[in-house]
């Protein structure tokens, strides 16, 4: 990617869950690391999230979910991303997601799932490494 352009990231909360402490902390940490961060706010539908990713022309999409609805919402988001030609965006998931569910989510094209206790530096490094390769 163009070295002059700052990494642009969309942090999104799909579904009805309002617990956005993690999403907001991550958004702040990414911003402090020099990335441009857009946060959608809570209660976003898959359609709204993909629209925001398209409009904001982001490099990475971070989905935070704690309600257990990832099994429906993540596949739906991946499906719409592909429909809109955004299949190459780096998509990451975070929140409370059972490890058993992770392989299935990765098959959909979600690059990595980060659970509780992850440091923001781990995430920052991951985004930098994976985008510079792309």
């Amino acid at each position, binding site marked *: 990617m163009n070295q002059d352009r700052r990494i642009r990231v969309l942090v999104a909360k799909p579904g009805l869950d309002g617990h956005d402490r993690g999403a907001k902390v991550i958004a702040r940490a990414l911003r402090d690391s020099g990335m441009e961060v857009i946060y959608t706010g809570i209660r976003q539908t898959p359609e709204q999230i993909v629209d925001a990713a398209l409009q904001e022309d982001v490099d990475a999409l971070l989905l935070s979910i704690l309600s257990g609805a990832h099994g429906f919402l993540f596949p739906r988001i991946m499906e719409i991303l592909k429909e809109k030609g955004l299949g190459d965006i780096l998509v990451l998931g975070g929140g409370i997601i059972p*490890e058993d569910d992770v392989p299935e989510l990765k098959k959909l094209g979600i690059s990595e799932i980060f659970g509780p206790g992850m440091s923001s530096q781990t995430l920052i490094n991951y985004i930098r490494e994976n985008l510079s390769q792309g």
Partner: protein
Amino acid sequence: MEEDIEKIREETKRWNRDCLGKHTFRKSETDWGLEIKPLYTVDDIRDINYLEEIGFPGEYPFTRAPHPSMYLGKLWTMRQYSGYGSAEETNKRYKYLLEQGQTGLSVAFDLPTQIGYDSDHPLSQGEVGKVGVAVDSLADMETIFNGLPLDKLSTSMTINAPAAILLAMYLAVAEKQRIATEKLNGTIQNDILKEYTVRGTYIFPVGPSLRLITDIFEYCSKHVPKWNTINVAGYHMREAGATAVQEIAFTFADAIEYVNAGIKAGLRVDDFAPRISWIFNTHNNFFEEVAKYRAARRLWAKIMKERFGASDPRSWMFRFHTQTAGSALTAQQPLNNVVRVAFQTLAAILGGAQSLASCSFDEALALPTEDSVRLSLRTQQIIAHEIGVTDTVDPMGGSFYIESLTRKMEEKIIDYINRIDELGGAAAAIEKGYIQQEIQESAYRYQKEVESGKKVVVGVNSYQVEEPLPKGLLKVDPKVGAIQIKKLKELKVARDNQKVESTLLALRKTAEGNTNLMPPILEAVKAYATLGEICGLLREVFGEYEGTSAI
């Protein structure tokens, strides 16, 4: 005595200089910036007036306890926040917990229910039955409480925006069980302001939300007198990152707003204030948590008496439910959480809780299993019966550190409340984003401290091990959504739809006017109008709240 204090002060100075001063030691401080001294002495509490500030249990200002005999007279109510999947599964879990010695229920509703959508709403997809039980109509509520006599139970329901409707369903179940509503014991959370700040399950704008709350105050004061009509909630603010001081301050600011709303609606403060209850979060810092509850009891008594002129001593009493801190649990080495939960539970009891739910050790990974939730209940039972902390009232009272910390926390809480008053009250402060910003700042500061290693979290940033995948976690049946939708379809065929229409029409008229909403809601519920139909109608009349998402 003064001379003794002078001498103790001099001796403390000497000790600091000549004894402690020769050693290297760690400096500590609270999350909200109070430097904690290496040693507290009687000098730290010398200007506390015992009779005025500490006093006696069961008497103003209630610093030591709300009731004179506390756990010697009655243990706290042991609840475990639970509910998941279908009404049938939840009913089964409740019966299990009651068999295990739990003494009250605490109902967790799924997100569609909390936001007023039926299970077949497009936004409910993937969410039905996940974080709590799905309730679409009175039929589900009847199933949840099937075989559970409501007059012998105390039920707490974590429900806010649609609280009036779920309460109406509970009243309707009672009627079917032929139990007078006067006999019902329990609590609805019904605290909308913290939904706007941290939890997000709001539906309506501030004005109609406050009207729903004051309508419940009024209705229950006449018909359900033993019901706690609001459970002002600090728990979620703490989970969102608030410090202990912010937790109490912002919750009190919200409560002040509700009391003002009640008075503005024409109610007498002493008619509803005794039915205000609380839920807080008991975190890891043991002494701070004990001091927090003592400070809160004292300050709320003062607020009710001095600010609102309440004259019934029951209006001054701060009685609280607490749950241990979900956010303090780690997904790493989850068994360590057993220890964390035990200490948090102990702090809650030494702080004087009336009702308590202890988290389960697997909650950073999934909803708790039967085994893990039983262990948490056993933790409460061990503290209640085996370790002697319930043998006297407020055993921590008089500790130099605890009393000093209680005073310092009270002062800091008052500073915040004054600041919110200057901003025009809690609703205005939320509107301006002030409370949200303060909490976000604390959350970010905490995260940085964990990541820098300044704050040790065992198993997360220290003492890590390689771990296998956890086994045996609870998984909600993925079919629950489809089953719930099928039940809903059947319900809509079986019920008297003309009656549903007419009760909804009556509700609409009331919503457009200004009389109490509870009676028409009750009629609609009894006709098996669904939660989504009732909330949908109220959405049309009241409009919806637009959230903010500043970071």
